[in-house]
């Protein structure tokens, strides 16, 4: 009989990740789908689907989440884009300390940061008790701004200066250079930034919960509520809806970024 021998080959290096992938990504995903399409007794049913699309409260949560997601993305881009443009210009940002200053909030503990934001807003009279949407939006923008600045800043740093010179050479005024060259050139960064803000905003729940003092219920809050009340099937279906929205938005952004594979964006 031949002796059993173990020959090491490179593919074995993938085993730890494969195990991780299986345990923490594939199995949970399947579990979500399983719970989303079964009833309490474990039988296949579309009951959750019916319940979700007929329950005005849940549809309202979806609508509010989408709205706040869009609004936050827009606000972050409006604030973050010029900022990133400014940071990427070598004339103003010689030693990159400015970039650090703007992404530093990411390094402070999230719960602490949100708690402090709430106290600050209450103190200046914009507390969630009176202005739930405003307070939530301020908190969201504050939290997600670094996620917009970073990808935009990196795209803008890599921008080919000779293209900007070429535009100007062809008769574009500084304003036209910005809209006809800088913006299109930074569109991969814009897409990256938007995806990094939109989905997490929709599913976040601590920020909206703390800052609106429980008045604004986002998708994340709602899922958490379902699970904490033992309604696993309803919660799972909502998680499934979120998953579908992510997939749709990915298909949508894929076209924009088709020639940007080399840039190594996270999607």
């Amino acid at each position: 009989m031949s002796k059993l021998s173990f020959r090491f080959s490179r593919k074995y290096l993938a085993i730890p990740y494969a195990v991780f992938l299986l345990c923490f990504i594939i199995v949970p995903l399947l579990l979500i789908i399983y719970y989303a399409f079964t009833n309490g007794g474990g039988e296949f049913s579309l009951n959750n689907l019916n319940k979700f699309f007929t329950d005005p409260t849940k549809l309202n949560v979806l609508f509010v989440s989408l709205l706040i997601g869009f609004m936050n993305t827009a606000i972050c881009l409006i604030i973050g884009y010029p900022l990133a443009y400014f940071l990427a210009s070598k004339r103003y940002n010689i030693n990159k300390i400015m970039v650090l200053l703007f992404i530093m909030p990411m390094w402070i503990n999230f719960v602490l940061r949100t708690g402090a934001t709430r106290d600050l807003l209450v103190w200046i009279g914009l507390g969630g008790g009176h202005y739930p949407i405003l307070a939530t939006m301020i908190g969201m923008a504050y939290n997600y701004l670094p996620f917009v600045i970073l990808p935009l800043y990196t795209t803008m740093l890599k921008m080919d200066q000779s293209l900007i010179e070429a535009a100007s050479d062809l008769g574009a005024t500084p304003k036209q250079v910005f809209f006809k060259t800088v913006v299109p050139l930074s569109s991969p960064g814009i897409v990256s930034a938007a995806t990094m803000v939109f989905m997490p905003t929709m599913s976040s729940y601590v920020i909206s919960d703390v800052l609106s003092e429980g008045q604004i219920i986002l998708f994340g809050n709602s899922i958490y509520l379902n699970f904490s009340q033992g309604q696993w099937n309803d919660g799972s279906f909502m998680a499934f809806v979120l998953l579908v929205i992510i997939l749709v938005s990915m298909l949508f952004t894929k076209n924009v970024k088709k020639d940007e594979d080399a840039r190594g964006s996270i999607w």
Partner: protein
Amino acid sequence: MKEPIIIELRNVSKVFGDMTAVDDINLAIKKGEFVTLLGPSGCGKSTTLRMIAGFDMPTQGQIFLNGEDITNLPPYQRPVNTVFQRYALFPYLDVYDNIAFGLKLKKIKEKVIDRHGQEVEVTRKLTQEEIDDKVTKALKMVDLEEFEWRDIATLSGGQQQRVAIARAIVNEPEILLLDEPLGALDLKMRQEMQLELKDMHKKLGITFIYVTHDQEEALTMSDTIVVMKDGMIQQIGSPVDVYNEPKNAFVADFIGESNIYNATYLGDKKVRFLGQVFTCVDDFEKNEKVDVVIRPEDIRLCPASEGMVVGKIISKIFKGVHYEYTMMVGKNEVIIQDTRDIPEMDKIGITIAPDMIHIMKKVITENIYLGHIDKNNNVCFANGVFEADITQLQQDSRVDEDGYLVDAKGLKYDLTDVDVQVSIDFNAIGIIDNEEDGEVAGEIVSIIYKGDHYKVIVRTSDEEDFVVDTEYSWNEHDRVSVYIAKKDIRLKLKGDIKDHVKA
């Protein structure tokens, strides 16, 4: 017919930090000319172009276009367009939109009759049909018909280059600026494009300003060549002028192959180099030190008995149309191009016609020699061996016990037999009465009183001169020797020190 001047640079300088890229240049370019700015990298040619385009503002001086000062005009207000080195095409637009980019922004003035029957001037944008028409014409010009809707990324380098040219000329600029546009193309493509560009220049009739470091490209295409070095213009002239009558040794060396020798003008149209006296056609001051340039194709090989100079052929290379021979005359190399296949012989002669000997004035501000470092880290030049401080070739370096140069990072350099340029101030050379006591012996060939000191020229048997400022008087024809202190010998590496890192 004399064409008016379209663009003029007056005393223009550009300084980046502590680096002077362009140093007080004056240049006037005539309408319709094909002008090439030629020079090695870092000579300021691209910076000059960028200042004409408006991307860089001159630190000093003014730029005039058709007599109007445009020094402070931004690029988008200048009637010039640029073809960039790496094309700079917009990757998010297709070929059509790249070319139409400038047209879509353009506003034209037009005279129309308004409803009161009066003629008024209005500005309007180009219509879609006008743009279409111009883009199609431009594409035809660069031979890219039916490429309108192609993505930029799907085009080859040569095609992208054509799009870049079309994008510039479609705006009908008064001047087309081209910044080494063919640099990224392969040789065959480059030669093809050279002819096409030349053709295009003829058809369009506008002024082309072309930047390149390729002397052949410059000679092929230009009406006028501007040779630049260290931010300064060395010579302006037609290709024939620049080739046949180079103003100084740099131009001669940069444009075409040439033999350059130290020589002495003996007066009466006689010049001495390669140890012989030649008849020439130029007039210089008697006993003046000059540079002599002879093109390899202007030297004729002949039997030793008929030669003006006799030497030994050390190499022979077949170059297609001709053979290139390298001959040694004493310590000097002579490069000769001859169509005849001559066997390599120990003794062969050369003849040079008087009008092929180009003599150029030498401007001397310090003594400059070409030398090399020997294995003891001494510097050999002008027939002598001098002690020198080689640590000046690299910052914060020292010489280790094995004689290698070690820099601050611990990298070792082996500088044996490395060529260096040696420069020595006039007042750093000492003269000794005795031929044996100094490092190099020579004869005093000239002594001029300069008020408070004498300018003495000591010439070695190899026609190398030491120009010495001294307070002591000497006599012409004295045999003397010279010495130089170690600290006064300044060295500059010919090439990059990184090439000599010891493995």
